[in-house]
């Protein structure tokens, strides 16, 4: 879900036992093809030769930006651009490990305080040197309820940030907070107070990032240029990046083929096999970083009954959906963070499904043996989720459930979703660097994003325990049980994960999908 539109990022084969290709086999094959899934180092696995300085990367993304102020994190299409203008304290690398950003290093002093050492050579694009005060200002602004910044809710356990020295900050937490680093990699671009006062940050982003903002011609393009005072020596390589957002998949691909663009975010899924056979364009490695799932409205009958939620889960044929709708650009999975995520568990309590006999029994036990009529809510602008509903309709028919697919355009869709006027909704969620970012917002009873209306004290207890455990090792041990519990009790059924994969000219290097879904171009270069 999130505002990022689920474009159909390509991959050739569905990963499923019945398709003859296991997830492990897929990983092995991908690695054999030079995909480098296990790489822990910088973004070199996919690059060829020595990086070269210069050139313009003409990028075509799926949607246009709307707001460059990171405090709002409004639309993925905006983030894709301004994440190259700002820096965060920390980042995730290809392997999902935390790596330094504006924070050179960090240590957890005790359960409730973290100390971050900051780089001392970063400069904002307005000439202001980066100091600890900028970090304090960024978080004070974010946490101040008066500012009404939507990202605040993600940092609710953070009490405040204190400058210890000119380049050192201490985070004070109200309680131990396991996903703190993950949160810092997701949405905490460091802003400068003076810059914010000088120019409207919604329109003129000013950060310390590898590229400085040059111009934004609305509905046309955004231009960024290399920031020569960037704190990482030798980076970035590119002179300039021009972001455009053609609305149509075919137009984007044609633009890449004609040379109008040299990097595009997606191609039509049905073109993947053909494109893979050629050299130009080439594809980046593919990574399943965007979970797709069904939301069952547990706030009212029939899905306030756990048995009926389970009946749907046992009827669902994930492999069929991926094959018929996504042309293999998704992997079938039952968990939000499948391999190669460091959080992958392999847990699937519905393994061996679909099991129609079991589903019928559950329906009968819940008093719905005579059949059910349900609605499937979906945004009409996301045709793949509409098709998912159509396949689901056929699958549910086998156990006597009639599904009415209701494609609504954005306005009506959000009203129905927020008003919980649906039985099942097709959705996706783009924040999975740490699984807490999936379960807390979507399944905790106190979350405003709990659109499925699932309320359970046990669920809250389990989510909180996972969230507020500081030790990463302990959290890793707890996680499979959390996944299992939500598969059995929760109101979300994860059915696939979209493979993120970018397409580019053969001379473009250093671009790989990240679990944070950032388009980080500081390591990209053109041969």
């Amino acid at each position, binding site marked *: *879900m*999130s*505002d990022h539109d689920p474009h159909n990022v390509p991959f050739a084969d569905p990963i499923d036992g019945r398709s003859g290709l296991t997830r492990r086999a897929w990983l092995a094959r991908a690695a054999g093809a030079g995909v480098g899934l296990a790489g822990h180092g910088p973004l070199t696995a996919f690059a060829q030769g020595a990086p070269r300085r210069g050139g313009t990367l003409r990028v075509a993304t799926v949607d246009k930006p*709307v*707001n460059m102020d990171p405090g709002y994190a409004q*639309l993925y299409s905006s983030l894709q651009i301004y994440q190259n203008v700002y820096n965060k304290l920390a980042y995730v690398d290809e392997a999902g490990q935390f790596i330094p950003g504006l924070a050179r290093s960090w240590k957890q002093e005790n359960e409730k305080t973290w100390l971050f050492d900051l780089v001392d050579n970063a400069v904002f694009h307005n000439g202001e040197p980066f100091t600890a005060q900028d970090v304090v200002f960024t978080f004070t602004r974010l946490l101040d309820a008066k500012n*009404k910044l*939507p990202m605040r809710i993600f940092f609710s356990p953070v009490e405040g940030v204190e400058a210890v020295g000119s380049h050192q900050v201490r985070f004070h937490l109200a309680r131990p907070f396991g996903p703190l680093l993950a949160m810092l990699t997701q949405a905490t671009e460091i802003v400068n107070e003076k810059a914010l006062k000088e120019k409207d940050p*919604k*329109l003129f982003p000013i950060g310390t990032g590898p590229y400085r903002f040059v111009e934004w*011609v*609305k*509905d*046309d*393009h955004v231009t960024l240029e290399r920031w020569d005072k960037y704190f990482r020596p030798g980076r970035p390589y590119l002179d300039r990046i021009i972001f*455009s*957002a*053609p*609305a*149509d998949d*075919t*137009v984007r691909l*044609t*633009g890449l*083929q*004609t040379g*109008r663009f040299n990097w595009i975010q997606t191609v039509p899924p049905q073109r993947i096999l053909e494109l893979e056979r050629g050299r130009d364009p080439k594809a980046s490695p593919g990574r399943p970083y965007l979970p797709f799932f069904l939301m069952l409205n547990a706030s009212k009958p029939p899905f306030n009954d756990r048995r009926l939620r389970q009946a749907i889960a046992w009827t669902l044929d994930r492999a069929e959906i991926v094959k018929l709708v996504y042309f293999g650009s998704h992997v079938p999975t039952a968990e939000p963070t499948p391999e190669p995520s460091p959080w992958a568990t392999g847990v699937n309590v519905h393994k061996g499904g679909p099991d129609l006999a079991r589903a019928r029994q559950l329906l009968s036990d819940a008093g719905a043996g005579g059949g059910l009529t349900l609605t499937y809510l979906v945004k009409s*602008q996301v045709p793949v989720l509409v098709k998912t509903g159509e396949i689901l309709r056929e699958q549910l028919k086998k156990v006597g459930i009639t599904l009415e697919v209701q494609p609504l*355009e*954005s*306005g*009506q869709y*959000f*009203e129905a979703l*927020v008003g919980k006027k649906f039985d099942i909704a097709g959705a996706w969620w783009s924040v999975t660097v740490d699984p807490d970012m999936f379960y807390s917002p979507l399944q905790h009873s106190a979350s*405003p*994003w709990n*659109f499925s209306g699932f309320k359970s004290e046990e669920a809250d207890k389990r989510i909180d325990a996972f969230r507020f455990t500081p030790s990463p090792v302990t959290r890793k041990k707890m996680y499979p049980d959390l996944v299992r519990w939500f598969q059995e009790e929760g109101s979300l059924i994860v059915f696939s994960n979209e493979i993120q994969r970018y397409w580019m000219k053969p001379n473009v290097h250093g671009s790989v999908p990240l679990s944070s879904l950032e388009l980080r171009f500081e390591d990209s270069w053109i041969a």
Partner: protein
Amino acid sequence: MSSPWIYAARRLLLAVPLLLGMSILVFGLMRLVPGDPAVVILGYKATPDGVRALREAWHLDEPLPHQYLRWLAGLLRGDFGLDFRQNEPIGRMILDRLPVTLELTLLAAAGTALIGIPLGLLGGAQRRGFADRATFAIGLVGVSIPDFWLGIMLILGLSLGAGLLPSGGFVPIAESPLENLQHLVLPALTLALSRAAVLGRLSRAAVLDVAQRGFVQFARAKGLAEHAVLFRHVLPNAAIPIVTVLGLQVGYMLGGAIVVEMIFTLPGVGRMTLDAVLERNYPVVQSTVLVIGAMFMLVNLATDILYGVIDPRVRRR
């Protein structure tokens, strides 16, 4: 004041109630469309508090007549209001995008006339001959092809295949007139082809109608060459319906180039309006519809004035 000026002033005065009616209509229609702008703009971040705060900030919690009068009062001061999404002045947003749409429309109108009128003349001059049948076939195909398909085919053929023209994007004329033209050829052609087919059919009918009149027969009987008959006697007399249709086409293109602007990623008014409709960005939709409506009226007025230039009898009436 000479009569054409009085006529123009009267038409402009008549436009005021029309625009007022249009403003009520578009305001009302937008409110009838399901979907709360606050919920749409906030998307998945739509919490009840957030929605309430936005509705208050945008005065959507006020009664509808108050909202309308507030907007109208702003219009009278020349203030179109602020865009819901980016808080930008809508007047500036329209001014930024209007040149793109106007340029595209003018080029497409020129293309429509250059293709459509000769097609009609050719067909009308050789009724039931090969040229007429060919014109009919071309017209039928042109009318039947949707813009989105034609646009993509032109990109595939002339841009990807032949590498002659860019597949999209926009370069302002002030930056580079040549590149500006190169970027607008394909979108203008896409818009022009189907409209030229309509104009061709109509021009043919107008030419046929005039060609049967006595003065044309007389000109032929005098021994005038066929091209002289056609260009000196037939075309000027068939011009009024042709200009009428061309004027209407220009009006439609001003607001109806949405698909073409989307395919060729042109930052024009059509694309902005469509996005605003999808986002329930009320003030943007209301303002752009009103501006497009006003321009449509101006084009119609210009067309009417042009009648007098083409045919002096109209001036005398």
